[in-house]
């Protein structure tokens, strides 16, 4: 049955194992550092890597993992469908760049061209939408295309797309091999954009509240460690992320890991955008979906 | 000749349905077979010989009439009446000896008894040293002999043979015909044999049923009064040849050209 494999069972003497899903991207670095530093005591942490968001969501929805660092919009979709999830922290702030090929000098140049995003429901799509609007263009002026992130640098290099907007380090890859350049950083378009968040199953939060708190304490701490973006952080991250240091350094330059609290006004802006773009009719409200109690206690 | 009736076919008819057309294949067939007899059913291709044999063996149910084996209606195939198929029907995945043992496995015999009986009948057909080989390693003639051994091993009251030697060359055919007569005499088996070879029928049989087609009927029954073994070039043999051939020619008026027997 559903949830059978939920690992976090509360048997007394054995330490429970928390399973958290992730994709190998720069946005999940705090998770990597938390596991590497292994400061927690009340539980075992198992990070489960997935090949794509779709598979990660399936696992999360069916209770095969207790939580995940994932695109917030996808979690909101699940919530809307009746899966009990809570967003408890951000995965990162900023750190999404709009990469284009070297011939594109402004938004106007993108008109009529193909532009890749990982997902219709991603914050990247919203960023693209706002960017176009801010430059006096319509969303329909570019042809937005969903592509697996790993294919984007190749597609850009081969001239199949004019640009892309996706999680790191895939933006940095193109910049590092001189096949692309940064047209905009996300904070220029939408300050306080919410992208990847740490999501936990409500079931887990209710049954193992203390453990959840401990997990969150060290998550916040790991975020602060990550914010140093030093050699140490790079080493720990590279256990999960197989990229050159040059790419990673670029990636780190654009991102921030301090203050991982989800702010209500940012969230409102997100839901407004979703409704405005017609991507979601009834996005869950801030109260329903965001649970800041852990991060607030951790501070 | 022993005068116990073993097979008794009574007013038997059979038709097949073909695309909602009813094709009468056998009509009102009646005959008796005595214990120890060799009877041939002779007829052209498609006249219903195989169908008749299948009905006698219980493989096909007649539409009308009945077949009695020792006075009891035949409703299903059974071990007392073994059919030999034209393509020999040996199981390619079993060695020669295990093929012969196949029918014995249903009897209450120990493995040793089974093996002994199989070897006895393999010896009878002259293949005692081939028991461990596989059928595909045998020539056509040898395969047919294995089939005969397999049938005999069950000591059936009746053996049905459907064109048993049609696939063999003349020399092997002659040889196996002699073998069959020798074994038949030794075991006193009753045999019903389907063939389209006039010589074969005359050479082997005590009686010949001549079938005519559309629908299949037994047109004539001929007693062969020659002593066995017979001489194919003897005048009497030629008499029967000519006689039977005339029977068939009579039935084929559509043939423009004269046959020269």
């Amino acid at each position, binding site marked *: 049955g559903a949830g059978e*494999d939920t690992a976090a069972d509360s048997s007394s003497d054995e330490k429970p194992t928390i399973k958290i899903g992730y994709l190998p991207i720069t946005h999940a670095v705090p998770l990597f550092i938390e596991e590497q530093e292994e400061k927690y005591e009340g539980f075992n942490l198992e990070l489960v890597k997935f090949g794509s968001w779709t598979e990660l969501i399936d696992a999360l929805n069916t209770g095969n993992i207790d939580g995940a660092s994932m695109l917030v919009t996808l979690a909101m979709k699940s919530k809307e469908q009746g899966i009990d999830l809570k967003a408890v922290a951000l995965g990162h702030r900023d750190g999404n760049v709009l990469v284009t090929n070297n011939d594109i000098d402004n938004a106007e140049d993108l008109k009529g061209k193909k532009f890749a995003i990982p997902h219709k429901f991603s914050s990247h799509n919203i960023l693209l939408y706002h960017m176009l609007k801010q430059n006096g263009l319509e969303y329909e002026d570019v042809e937005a295309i969903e592509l697996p992130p790993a294919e984007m640098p190749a597609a850009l290099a081969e001239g199949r797309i004019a640009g892309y907007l996706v999680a790191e380090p895939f933006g940095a890859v193109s910049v590092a*091999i001189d096949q692309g350049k940064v047209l905009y950083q996300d904070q220029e378009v939408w300050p306080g954009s919410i992208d990847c968040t740490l999501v936990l199953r409500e079931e887990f939060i209710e049954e193992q509240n203390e453990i959840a708190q401990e997990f969150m304490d060290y998550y916040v701490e790991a975020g602060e460690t990550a914010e140093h973006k030093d050699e140490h952080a790079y080493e720990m991250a590279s256990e999960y992320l197989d990229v050159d240091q040059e790419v990673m350094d670029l990636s780190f330059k654009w991102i921030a890991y301090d203050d991982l609290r989800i702010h209500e006004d940012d969230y409102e802006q997100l839901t407004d955008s979703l409704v405005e773009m017609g991507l979601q009719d009834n996005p869950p409200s801030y109260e329903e979906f965001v649970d800041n109690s852990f991060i607030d206690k951790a501070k | 000749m022993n005068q116990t009736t073993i097979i008794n076919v009574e007013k038997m008819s059979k038709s097949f349905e073909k695309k909602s057309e009813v094709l009468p294949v056998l009509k009102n067939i009646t005959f008796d077979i005595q214990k120890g007899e060799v009877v041939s059913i002779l007829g052209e291709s498609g006249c219903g010989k195989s169908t008749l044999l299948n009905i006698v063996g219980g493989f096909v149910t007649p539409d009308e009439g009945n077949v009695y084996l020792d006075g009891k209606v035949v409703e299903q*195939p059974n071990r007392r009446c073994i059919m030999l198929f034209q393509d020999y029907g040996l199981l*390619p995945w079993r060695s020669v000896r295990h093929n012969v043992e*196949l029918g014995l496995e*249903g009897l209450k015999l120990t493995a040793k008894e089974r093996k002994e009986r199989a070897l006895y009948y393999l010896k009878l057909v002259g293949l005692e040293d081939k028991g461990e080989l596989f059928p*595909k390693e045998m020539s056509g003639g040898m395969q047919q002999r294995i089939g005969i051994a397999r049938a005999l091993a069950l000591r059936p009251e009746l053996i049905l043979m459907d064109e048993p030697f049609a696939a063999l060359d003349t020399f092997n055919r002659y040889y196996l015909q002699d073998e069959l007569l020798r074994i038949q005499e030794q075991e006193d088996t009753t045999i019903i044999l389907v063939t389209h070879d006039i010589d074969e029928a005359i050479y082997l049989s005590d009686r010949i049923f001549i079938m005519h087609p559309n629908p299949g009927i037994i047109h004539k029954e001929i007693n062969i009064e020659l002593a066995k073994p017979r001489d194919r070039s003897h005048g009497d043999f030629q008499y029967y040849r000519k006689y039977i051939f005339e029977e068939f020619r009579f039935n084929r008026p559509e043939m423009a050209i004269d046959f020269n027997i």
Partner: protein
Amino acid sequence: MSIPKTTINIIAGMAILLVVWQALILIGGYEEALFPPPLRVGEGILSLIADGTLFTHFQVSFLRFLAGYISAVILAIFLGLILGRMPLLWGVLNPIAQLIRPVSPVAWSPFIVLWFGIGNMPAIVIIFIASFFPVLLSTVSAVKNVDQTYLKIAQNFEMKGFELVKKIIFPAAFPYIANGLHIAVGTAWIFLVAGEMVGAQSGLGYLIVDARNSMRLDLVMAGILFIGVSGLLLDKAVGLFENWINKKWGRT
């Protein structure tokens, strides 16, 4: 005598492959990172072998493959032998099989995760689905097409039930079942990768996804080559097994 010739052919074939590959890169002028040349892939393979990654992933994949394939084969042959003898029941179940068969096992993955969780099971289940239908359908049709003569002989010798299946139907149908097994090995191995690309955390398919996500296309290519080679060996192994059984059972 025939082995050297095959070996020469294989070597010649591989040589052609490498030349075409390298030529494509030179003519197309592709970036190394996007379309790695043979040499770099060779290095990739060596590094994967050296750190044991390749072997570990292969082992995981292979065990999953065995689990999925063997359980599918056993169940499918068992059901096939029964259903082949029950034309009425098969008449009803056949449409269901026909409906499910054309669906890519990967399409089921949301439900597979729901029922079987994550880890080894999804890949095993996908391989199971991929092998089950070819074997079931070929078993049913093999059983239906068992030579009438054999069935008549069995009737004549008064064989019934389990004895009939064991002594006549199964051995007579086996060459066609074996053919189904052979096809199923190919299909299942192909879907192994697809299966492991979805929801697995190890195995050759995962190796490819992970290398892709890390933008290491040389390792992707290495994984592809390795899957090709091991699929080929697996196919040959099943072929040998088929021949061996056929020989043992006195077939050509």
